[in-house]
């Protein structure tokens, strides 16, 4: 796979009470200044005039920009709400990306939008810009749930937005949904899934609600006003989601992602899961590139104002980085692989990172198999749906230290 490009647009018209991403309240007017800063960041990277002080990061950026890992074949505009950007700003941003970076002619363009921003006009624009996968932040088709989640659209609006997007002829339209809300029953969630399936999008993302401490929900939960579902209820809803969508012909190819067919899977997200190089622009955006010792991951300032200030002062907006050893990469590969239906390619793991889990953990893997958590074919371990529900647990069940140190000693 070839490198991916991510641009973070932090603005939303209001902050959802469950969201813990780098977001701030803002609209199209804020977007203009923001895109100015993005272009400064892009220019600094492309010319090499404003590279990070961190040598590993500077080297990795230079290599990405020089196309040493290949040309970028995906661009993902996420947020926040990229659909708040005005047409003019969107156009000059994309134009600049194509101009300053080695972007492939057949680049796939991923775009996140809120249903309230979906109009005949905006759809025409996004089509014109070449969006191939449009993700709609629907979250729910139930007005009460939407209110609880602090969303700004109604159930009717949600349905109409999906229908219009589907008619507009994008390669892939995806619906984002949230489930596992306090008190949500299996029946209520099944109805939502029915609605989504009948609209017949090519892709669905169903995220189980997580309560993060620094969000409004987190605070309400700490005060005891909001109660997360029990582990058993969460598990029931998770399994229901995968089973029900499978019956409607959606393959759960990842913990929270479902596709009509393999070509509708998110080709951009797959890069995160497989250590394919990616470059991130905008506040809080992460980037990754391989190095001789493993890899390096770095990330931008999380706060928009601080990010913009660094750029304004002619510096890179990088907050920090992390050098990843082969052991770290192996752990991540397992952690991410066990979240996906394709599982972990153990032969690749050994070849790329020097970690042989088939020998070292034969017994543990066999226990998982007997318990119905994984299937094993030759050199590949794939989680079952029940296994996916436990992906975090599975990876912590493996103690990799030993193999990794042995490998390092040998090297």
């Amino acid at each position: 796979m070839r490198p991916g490009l991510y641009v973070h647009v932090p603005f939303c018209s209001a902050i959802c009470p469950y969201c813990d991403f780098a977001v701030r309240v803002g609209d199209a007017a804020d977007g203009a200044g923001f895109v100015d800063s993005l272009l400064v960041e892009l220019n600094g990277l492309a010319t090499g005039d404003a590279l990070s002080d961190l040598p590993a990061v500077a080297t990795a950026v230079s290599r990405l920009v020089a196309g040493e890992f290949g040309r970028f074949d995906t661009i993902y505009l996420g947020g926040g709400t990229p659909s708040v950007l005005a047409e003019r700003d969107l156009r000059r941003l994309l134009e600049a990306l194509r101009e300053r970076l080695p972007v492939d002619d057949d680049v796939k363009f991923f775009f996140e939008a809120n249903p309230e921003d979906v109009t005949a006009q905006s759809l025409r624009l996004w089509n014109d810009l070449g969006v191939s996968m449009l993700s709609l932040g629907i979250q729910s088709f139930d007005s009460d749930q939407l209110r609880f989640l602090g969303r700004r659209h109604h159930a009717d609006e949600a349905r109409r937005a999906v229908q219009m997007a589907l008619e507009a002829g994008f390669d892939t339209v995806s619906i984002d949904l949230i489930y596992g809300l306090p008190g949500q029953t299996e029946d209520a969630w099944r109805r939502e899934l029915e609605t989504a399936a009948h609209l017949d999008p090519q892709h669905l993302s169903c995220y189980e609600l997580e309560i993060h401490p620094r969000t409004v929900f987190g605070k309400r939960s700490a005060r005891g006003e909001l109660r997360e579902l029990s582990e058993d209820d969460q598990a029931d809803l998770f399994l229901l989601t995968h089973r029900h969508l499978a019956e409607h012909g959606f393959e759960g190819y990842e913990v929270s992602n479902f596709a009509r067919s393999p070509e509708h899977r998110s080709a951009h997200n797959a890069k995160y899961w497989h250590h394919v190089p990616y470059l991130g622009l905008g506040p809080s955006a992460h980037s990754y590139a391989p190095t001789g010792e493993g890899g390096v991951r770095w990330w931008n300032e999380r706060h928009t104002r601080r990010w913009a200030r660094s750029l304004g002062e002619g510096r890179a907006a990088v907050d920090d980085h992390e050098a990843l050893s082969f052991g770290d990469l192996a752990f991540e590969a397992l952690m991410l692989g066990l979240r996906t239906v394709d599982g972990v390619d153990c032969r690749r793991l050994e070849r790329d990172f020097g970690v042989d889990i088939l020998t070292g953990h034969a017994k543990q893997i066999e226990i998982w198999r007997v318990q119905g958590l994984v299937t094993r074919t030759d050199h590949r371990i794939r989680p079952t749906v029940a296994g996916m529900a436990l992906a975090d647990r599975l990876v912590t069940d493996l103690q990799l230290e030993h193999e990794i140190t042995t490998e390092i000693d040998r090297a």
Partner: protein
Amino acid sequence: MDNVRNFCIIAHIDHGKSTLADRLIQTCGGVSDREFRDQILDSMDLERERGITIKSNTITLPFTSKKDGRTYRLNLIDTPGHVDFSHEVRRSLMSCEGALLLVDASQGVEAQTVANLYLALEFDLELLPVINKIDLPSADVDRAREEIDSDLGLDPFEAVEVSAKTGLGVEDLLEALVEKLPPPEGDPGAQLQALIFDAQYDVYRGVVMLVRVKDGTLKKGQDIFLMHTKKTYQVEEVGLLKLEREASECLEAGNVGYVIAGVKSVRDITIGDTVTDAKNRSAEALPGYRPARPVVFASLYPIASDEYEDLTAALEKLSLNDAALTYEKDSSAALGFGFRCGFLGLLHLEVVQQRLEREFGLALLLSAPTVSYRVKLKTGEELVVDNPVFFPDPSEIEATYEPYIKAQIWIPERYVGTIMELCRDRRADDIQLRYLTQSRVEVNSILPLGEVLFDFYDKLKSYTQGYGSFDYEMFEYRETRIVKVDILVNGEPVDALSQLTHEDRARQRALHYCERLEETIPRQQFKIAIQGAIGGKIIARTTINAYRKDVTAKCYGGDITRKRKLLEKQREGKKKMKVVGSVEIPQEAFVAVLKSEAGK
């Protein structure tokens, strides 16, 4: 010798003993203002915090009487104020000729005041009653005087009125003290006999013995013989115990002071022993030697197994100045290496645990404390069992016996019902009420010591909003029905959680443990059965289902680092878990189970 007075202060808890000691020290100028801290004799932080004296201290104070113009040497021998340390009280009393008997002007004579009176009379001490806290609005001096007459049988007109807090009346008290309390007797030229009534440990000098010279003279360079331990040492230094040690050439009969003689550990000596001259040995030892016996037992484990060495070193150090603490190596399959320790009582246990945690920075786990049971086997053999590990199989047991205490509980009248219920719940025999005043009641009861080990004091305090107080003394062994309750995790016993308990309590305690474990052991790959059992009989059970869901919904775009770090942390946590019968038990589970009852 006529100018010497050896005395102590005896009082009911909270009647202001430490405050009075402070004031005496300050009034005599034994301490400069700069050196003065409240309750200077209670030197350990823990003592100051809890307002009790654990380890007794002694100080020599100069006092010049305005009445006769003579300068006296007053030896104030401090006594610990808690029943766990009553052996230390006795030793201290043996070193005195007189005692100040403190009565709280607002509370009057309390039961413990009477008990202390008898104790003092046992040692033939001259008593000077002191009415304290006369500055309080609620002070009733006349009533206190009446009670000194009627309840204590002492001359109420001798009683000195003071406020230790403000210093009011303290000068008069000192004058009365030198006038009423007798000087020591003894012959400096006679054969040496000195009583070791306490010992301190000095990092540089080793053991510092505190002695009362009854007869003869203790000199620097002299060879001395300790009559009980039968060891000979050479005196390196003798002197007086001012705020700091003040060396002198000798200590004559009648005096109280210290001796340093190259003793390495307090274990090498016994408190209550008699010091005599190695060449001119006294034929008889002084009375009063009584070894301290531990009555409460528990195992201590370091939470981090690599702290075992530190714990070993800490216990060694601690035992240098705590001769009552016993310990021996212990090991548990679940918790690794630790120590089985014996304590004088619950407070002693708590003090040791807290000192280890605070002064040595150790994180500790304490197994359920137990008392020493006696077990009669069918073979006729009798065993003493203070560790569940050694409790015989039920089929071999003919009878079991457990120690009972005589408990005295003082509470405001309105809590009588609640506290009687608490006592009955703790298998009390023979509860008796005595109205001290219309509003204050003394509850006397015979209770199994084992029932007091768990949160009895906490319950008492919380039921009485802090107004209740409690003291006890060991009484006797009575026949009982003690069983050993094992906790099984997937069929495997967790040795650190085994406990000895009364049969009627077994199910409740077992269930309590099972429920705490159910709450604290995370779900795992398999269903886990947690059971409480007596022998082969299951008496309680809870179940932990296998885990079903443990995955975050989102991977945060490219921020894989965050997720990896989170999982790495979880994985580290798992490494610290103890594995029992293939079940991973986090330390927190042991902490939650054991802390929920132990110690307090």
